[in-house]
């Protein structure tokens, strides 16, 4: 068994607003092995995007990493200085943003944007080497060489998103964090972008954290699945196991609410609304909506426990 590439330990990220501290990420821990694709799912406000920002050390005031560690390849990113972190980004971990159209500079040609990061990290290249590297990066994401001289507005959404994928792999990082990279794209284009990402993942043995709320996309593309709810981690396991036998009642309801081919016309949502993160429910955060809750659930926070090898769950049903 190899050492995990990424270890998140007791991570807490709070946003300080007038009314108090919003516990966007509350005591989350998990490991990620090298070469594994993990999906991180949750509803809006579950803390999944805050997780991505915390891993990139991009939490801005009034938010703050309150406690915990993000250990990547043996280094705790939370303890790094701003300059050290800048050096780490792109080289060790990179992020693919949600909306490519907002991430690319509209007045800069694609070639310059592709190697801007490398130049900023002090990579010295001759003119020929630059041209060759740009061509290579475009080829990796199935874009034609002529794209180099184009501007972002001349590209379709899928092509733009591929440019951001090329940027993220330009310095061959170990970990890529992709925050809903295909949520703005159509099914066919989504499949193309995911195919590109999968190929690169295999080629370079990357680890990927894919953040999103589309369980269908997750079922089709990740090895492991992590489910967050109201700032806490509910369950982690192999994707297949999670779909076949979800242990946490929240995961069960989430999977039951999905439209599949067999149950046409059945619409089952999860009753109730997500709790306020300013004043989360006592005990288990899900107990207010959980059909299986009992006394203990409102009294004690269920510990996040490994119930089978590689399968973690935070629920009194499985740990009490």
């Amino acid at each position, binding site marked *: 068994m190899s050492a995990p590439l990424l270890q998140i330990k007791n991570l807490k990220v709070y946003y300080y607003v007038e009314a108090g501290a919003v516990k966007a990420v509350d005591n989350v821990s998990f490991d990620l092995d090298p070469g594994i694709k993990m999906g991180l799912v949750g*509803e809006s406000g579950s803390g999944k995007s805050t997780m991505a920002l915390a891993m990139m050390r991009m939490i801005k005031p009034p938010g703050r990493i309150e406690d915990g560690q993000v250990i990547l390849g043996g280094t705790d990113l939370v303890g790094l200085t701003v300059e050290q972190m800048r050096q780490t980004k792109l080289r060790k971990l990179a992020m693919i943003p949600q909306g490519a159209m907002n991430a690319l500079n509209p007045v800069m040609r694609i070639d310059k944007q592709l190697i801007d990061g490398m130049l900023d990290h002090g990579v010295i290249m001759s003119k020929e080497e630059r041209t060759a590297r740009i061509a290579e990066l475009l080829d990796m994401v199935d874009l034609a060489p002529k794209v180099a001289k184009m501007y972002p507005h001349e590209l379709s959404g899928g092509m733009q998103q591929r440019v951001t994928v090329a940027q993220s792999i330009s310095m061959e990082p170990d970990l890529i964090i992709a925050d809903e990279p295909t949520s703005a794209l159509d099914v066919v284009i989504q499949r193309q972008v995911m195919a590109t990402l999968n190929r690169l993942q295999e080629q370079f043995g990357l680890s990927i954290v894919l953040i999103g709320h589309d369980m*269908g996309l*997750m079922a089709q593309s990740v090895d492991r699945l992590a489910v967050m709810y109201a700032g806490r981690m509910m369950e982690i396991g192999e994707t297949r196991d999670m779909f076949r036998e979800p242990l946490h009642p929240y995961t069960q309801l989430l999977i039951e609410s999905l439209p599949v081919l067999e149950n046409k016309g059945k*619409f089952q949502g999860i009753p109730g609304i997500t709790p306020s993160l300013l004043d989360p429910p006592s005990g288990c955060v899900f107990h207010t909506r959980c059909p299986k809750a009992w006394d203990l659930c409102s009294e004690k926070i269920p510990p996040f426990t490994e119930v089978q090898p590689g399968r973690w769950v935070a629920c009194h049903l499985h740990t009490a």
Partner: protein
Amino acid sequence: MSTPLLELRNVTKIFGSKGNPTVALDDMTLALDENVPKIITVAGESGSGKTTMGMLLLGFYEPTWGQVLFRGRPLSKLKGADLFQFRREIQAVFQDPFAVYNPFYKVDNLLSIPIKNFKLAHSSSEARELMEGALERVGLRPEETLGRYPHQLSGGQRQRIAVARALLLKPKLLITDEPVSMVDASLRSTILKALRGLNQESGTPIFYITHDLTTAYHISDYIIILYRGSVMEAGNVDTIIRNPKHPYTQLLVSSIPWPDPDLAWGGGEEMIQSSQVAFQVITGCRFAPRCPYRMDICDTKPPSLFSLERDHAAACYLYRDNESVVREELASVFVEA
């Protein structure tokens, strides 16, 4: 046959300049009847013309050629009482549950303004009752919703209020453009349930515009697949999702990410790779440049819709031996088989 409620008659919509025109919708004819309480989906990728179709039906766009008719009269010529009737009978629910609200007003406004404008209530207590009733029908508790500002509610709640507003007016047709694409998966089913409920209880036809074939399959009776402004396939949604006939629909259906790890993405790889064809002038079938079954005939002129079954037709020369459906009768495939 009675006059259809809302009708597109040979409608073409072109955007852009003369030198660089983009045909968003190409010679579309479709009649929507208030007496056929079905849910019809229009599906397609970005740029397929599906939103343009909705905008034309709502009167937000003027057709470049052709006519949009409301009860047999051109929409652009409606005035006074007729326009008022159109505004009341045709309702819409849009994609973005944030943009339809004015952040400075309480959400009550979205419900109270139509009550006032259309004089649905005689007293404020009656108005309140109407509002509460509409909210309850979409599964919201009035005491938790009324009196609040938009930012105090979740996206799902806001979108359900938008559906409640549409219910309030007892429309003859509801046009929804991607109503659940910005809402979390767990709330999607609640909104779809509210729409389906409106359709079944009040018999209101719904025109559902989406790029998401999964929700389309679950909510609708019939589906129209659009690609670059033209109809590729139309008919019964179950038939089309389970047994798509047009190569483009086959590609779309094989790319649906079903939430089941055992049901893998597959098929159509060759079409996936060739999607980067530049927007070029196409004289024949719009899909021909990407199609693996391309024949010489495909480049000559766009194929007409060929009938496959009573409630299923595809615009593809692979089926040219079948009888063709008259363009004017696209709606004829949406009849009970």
